[in-house]
């Protein structure tokens, strides 16, 4: 099944490193889900079964986590994932406008992808940087004080830095 998954060598290596850290194998399921998602962009049904087999679980034990945790995805998303904090301190500083600016820039619906599938803009709940509101995460990077002007700048950088093509997976 390793072939079916086509996971990168480093991913497989990390998976083997992570499992023995835990007194009980099942604890490794969340780290494995993160590793597979980082590798493939999302967690497919096949991946669910593969992880289950690896840890001696039933596929439902893995799938129910994919369906529960907001950061885990069961569908491909854009190459760039832009997450705008929606919660109170950011909203007080205008994060809804920030979100709209970004959605308009990529022509995507709320919680949706751009038409070419390259960019996903979605809301996130408090990102624990409320003093630098509004904040936005572009993939792993936190951007602070993102007003409309800064949002346009970020959008421009993403658009320029990325050839127009379909999403990952």
């Amino acid at each position, binding site marked *: 099944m390793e072939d079916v998954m086509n996971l990168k060598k480093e991913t497989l290596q990390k998976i083997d490193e992570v499992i023995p850290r835990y007194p009980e194998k099942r604890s490794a399921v969340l*780290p494995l889900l993160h590793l597979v998602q980082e590798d493939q962009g999302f967690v497919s049904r096949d991946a669910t079964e593969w992880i289950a087999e690896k840890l001696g679980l039933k596929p439902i034990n893995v799938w129910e*986590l994919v369906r529960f*945790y907001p950061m885990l995805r069961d569908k491909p998303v854009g190459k760039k994932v832009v997450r705008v904090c929606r919660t*109170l301190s950011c*909203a*007080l500083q205008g994060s*809804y406008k920030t979100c709209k600016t970004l959605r308009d820039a990529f022509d995507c619906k709320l919680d949706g992808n751009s038409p070419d599938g390259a960019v996903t803009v979605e809301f*996130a709940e408090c990102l624990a940087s409320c003093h630098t509101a509004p904040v936005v995460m572009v993939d792993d990077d936190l951007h602070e004080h993102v007003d409309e002007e800064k949002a346009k700048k970020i959008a421009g950088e993403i658009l320029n830095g990325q050839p127009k093509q379909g999403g990952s997976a």
Partner: protein
Amino acid sequence: MSAKERRIILKNIDQHGYGNDIDTYLEHGGYEIWKKALQRKPEELREEVKRSGVRGRGGAGFPAGMKWSFLDFKSGKPVYLVCNADESEPGTFKDRQIIYKDPHQLIEGMLISAYAITAKLAFIYIRGEFPDGARILERAIEEARSKNFLGKDILGTGFSCEIHVHRGAGAYICGEETGLIESLEGKRPYPRIKPPYFPAALGLYMCPTIVNNVETLCNVKHIAEMGGEEYAKIGRPGNTGTRIWCVSGHVRKPGYYEFEGGALTLGELIYDICGGLHPGRKLKAVIPGGSSMKILRADERFKGTDREGNNFDFALEDLILDFDGIAVSGSLSGSGGIIVMDDTTDMVDALANVSAFYAHESCGQCTPCREGSLWLKKILHRMSHGQARLEDVDLLKSVADQIPGRTICALGEAAAWPVQSYVAKFRDEFIAKAENQAAGRTNGDGGISDRVQLV
């Protein structure tokens, strides 16, 4: 650093040239306290923590020494330590500063704590949205391992301890300690019923487990350094040590500030430390401890009798900043997240924003929380989108009143308290919204002002 601040936990953070690598940490005396702690008996260290009176900084303010004393050592099972680095309560951002800027302080605090409770395995449960934070902690752990501060037979003492970083995946409920444990076991993070599942007896893998917040565990390092008795001299009785307050919202200088317990008032924090409000604005309301806590109205008076039998009559600005000082307001200092709102804030919209959070984060196990939080969100969404009705005010209250005390975990309270307090304290505003909308005086834009958009 402002005049009244006393930085113990944040001492080195944001200082010029202070990096998050081990060399910097060692130059600043890092791991010396760990070395000394290793020479002492675990029970002595537990005693120091008890004497310090330090209260948990994660939200509930439970004395850490007492929590540790509940550990079931007789079971003979392994003991685990878990650092709660899930930091997700809206308005809270202190743990992030420690993790990103001074990770070794946390590792040292954790090692001392693990040794004190005889845990050989510890986990840092870090929220999924801190990917860099997780990498920084992993690197710090490797650095500490390379110096044998961590790992097998630490510095030749025979004590072994491992720390692993475990990433969450975006669910707020993983911050609740028993939900966190379920998540760490690889399951959905459904909180457990207490009793019987108090972590100190039946925690991770049904073994005795201590879950403490990042800031709490950092404090243990300083308690081990100065001794519990000395530490207890900082701050006020029952509110010992320093506390990091996170201020956000409508102030000129939002940020994180560390003070001795009871060293200043809420008014001094807002006006002197945080530079007050923006020009031309007036204070309207303050949430004193993360968005789940009851809101305080700017013109409220807080009256009562304190423990010594003295009567008090405080304005909001007079509230003393520590656990007990905030509690006299009927609200709580929770996670230390203070959110300030000025007179441009529409309270219906603000509450709609808060309620959407708790509805999103309810794990769904308990009917009152799952259904109640969702209905509150829906009613408030409707109210803030041009369809407020006069009867909504009482409807909100009746739904919210059904939740507290009827759920497995405190998220039920977190969903209800904001609604109960906003509706009670800003009732006129909720009613005016309905009247204005009925009279066609608002155009169904949700009352969203041009500047502040909340829902």
